[in-house]
């Protein structure tokens, strides 16, 4: 059994938050290159060029890509050969998140939802969001950090369609919400679509879809088919980068599915902005590997 050093988890949680804010994953950079090569609108081309330049400026000046430090999300996947104190793990992640904010310092974008008081720690009730899951992997623990920007998070929608609405209802909902979100969600985006489950699971699936690496596909063949169809439809709308016109509205549409009830047909949309940031660490017996 691999024992997890809780102090290393705290340091890693801190490091991942700062790293995610500065370095865009390679799949997103390649996504930009692909859109830039195909964009036909002059305004759209010029905006994509500025976005690509910003990625380079952030790396050169060792600065954050975007001012929005987001709502911090940590996705933890624990392998079966791992021994860890779960409560201590969650507390360490929270401390790491708080230290990143105070020590760097980062803007704390997190407030109490009613009083709007900011503790200047990026933490609060139930935040950072920490999702725990388990894998078949042996001696391996993975922590993924996602600073979820608010401009795109405000582009979140849920509809409890009914069975009579069919897949048509799902498709229409995605297209209409992409139009409603327009430029407010900082396109080009990754449109995450959750289909099925309960209302809360459906919304969670949409977030998983929106934060999946570009190039990955839905495991379910029907979901994967919808991904292609919906991406074509969303990019045919002409919303374009920043909603100022063009072909590049979405890098991709990602779909995640769950089984649902015979009377239900829920669909959720969660959008990731062009600053599609994430960072990850994998703990193994030989050490900690930092990546995306």
């Amino acid at each position, binding site marked *: 059994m691999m024992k997890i050093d809780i102090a290393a988890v705290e340091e890693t949680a801190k490091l991942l938050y700062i790293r995610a804010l500065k370095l865009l994953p390679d799949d997103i950079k390649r996504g930009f290159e692909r859109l830039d090569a195909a964009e036909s609108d002059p*305004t759209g081309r010029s*905006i994509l060029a*500025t*976005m690509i*330049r*910003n990625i380079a*400026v*952030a790396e050169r*000046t060792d*600065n*954050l*890509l*975007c*001012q*929005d*430090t987001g709502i911090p999300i940590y996705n933890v996947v624990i392998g079966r050969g791992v021994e860890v104190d779960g409560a201590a793990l969650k507390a360490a992640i929270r401390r790491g998140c708080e230290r990143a904010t105070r020590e*760097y*310092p*980062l*803007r*704390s*974008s997190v407030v109490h939802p009613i009083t*709007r008081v*900011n503790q*200047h720690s990026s933490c609060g009730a139930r935040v950072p969001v920490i999702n725990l899951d388990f894998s078949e992997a042996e001696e391996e623990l993975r922590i993924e950090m996602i600073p979820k*920007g*608010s*401009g795109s998070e*405000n582009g979140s929608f849920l509809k409890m369609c009914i069975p009579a609405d069919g897949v*048509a209802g799902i*498709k*229409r909902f995605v*297209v209409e919400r992409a*139009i409603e979100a*327009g*430029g*407010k*969600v*900082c396109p080009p985006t990754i449109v995450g679509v959750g289909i099925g489950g309960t209302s809360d699971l459906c919304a969670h699936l949409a977030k998983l879809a929106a934060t999946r690496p570009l190039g990955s596909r839905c495991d379910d063949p029907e979901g994967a088919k919808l991904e292609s*169809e*919906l991406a*074509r*439809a*969303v990019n*045919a*709308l*002409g*919303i*374009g*980068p*920043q*909603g*100022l*016109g063009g072909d590049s509205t979405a890098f991709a549409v990602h779909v995640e599915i769950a089984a649902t009830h015979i009377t239900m047909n829920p669909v959720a949309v969660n959008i990731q*902005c*062009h*600053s599609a940031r994430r960072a990850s660490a994998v703990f193994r017996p030989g050490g900690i590997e930092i990546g995306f």
Partner: protein
Amino acid sequence: MAHRELTLPIDETAARALTVGDTVTLHGPLFGIRDATQIHMFDRKRNVRFDLRGQAVIHTAPNVRKVPVSAEHPAGYAPVCVGTTTSARMERFTRPLMHQHGVRLVIGKGGLGEESKAAFRELGGVYLAIIGGTAALETTWIEAIEDVDLDDLNPESLWKFRVRDFGPLLVAMDAKGGSLYDRIAERVEDRKRAALAALGLEP
């Protein structure tokens, strides 16, 4: 479609001379405002120390570092990362910003709505679109944080930046009732029918 270099503050004539599609680069003071800033200014009627007449405001809440007060950092803050947030949430504050404070230029991302468009037309102002999510670049246009007010709202304080070569920014809504967002929305509405048909759906 012209490019203009503007040193702030500007007068009504200069604001009305700008047309959708023009680009603008700004020099001088620039004031940072956000949701909480304006909720406190207008809903809670808090006074502000700054004279905003003829000035530009930007929808932002920056990342800053507390530093000793110096000539370089007169407010005791160094800019770390200054970007721009989605404007639409602050739609209802455009008119009071212009009417009560004399603001001429609003900078943001994602655009503003009908009420702002009417305020720009009646009172003489424009909306300048910046590219959201490009804060590393934007930060290089900020010379200093000169002053700060309502700092109990930090990071949503009322910031006074000094900027040079801030831009180019795109005039996306003008004082003649023009809006680039309206033009795009019309185009999207036209294309929606074909997009739905390709998915096998009725328009």
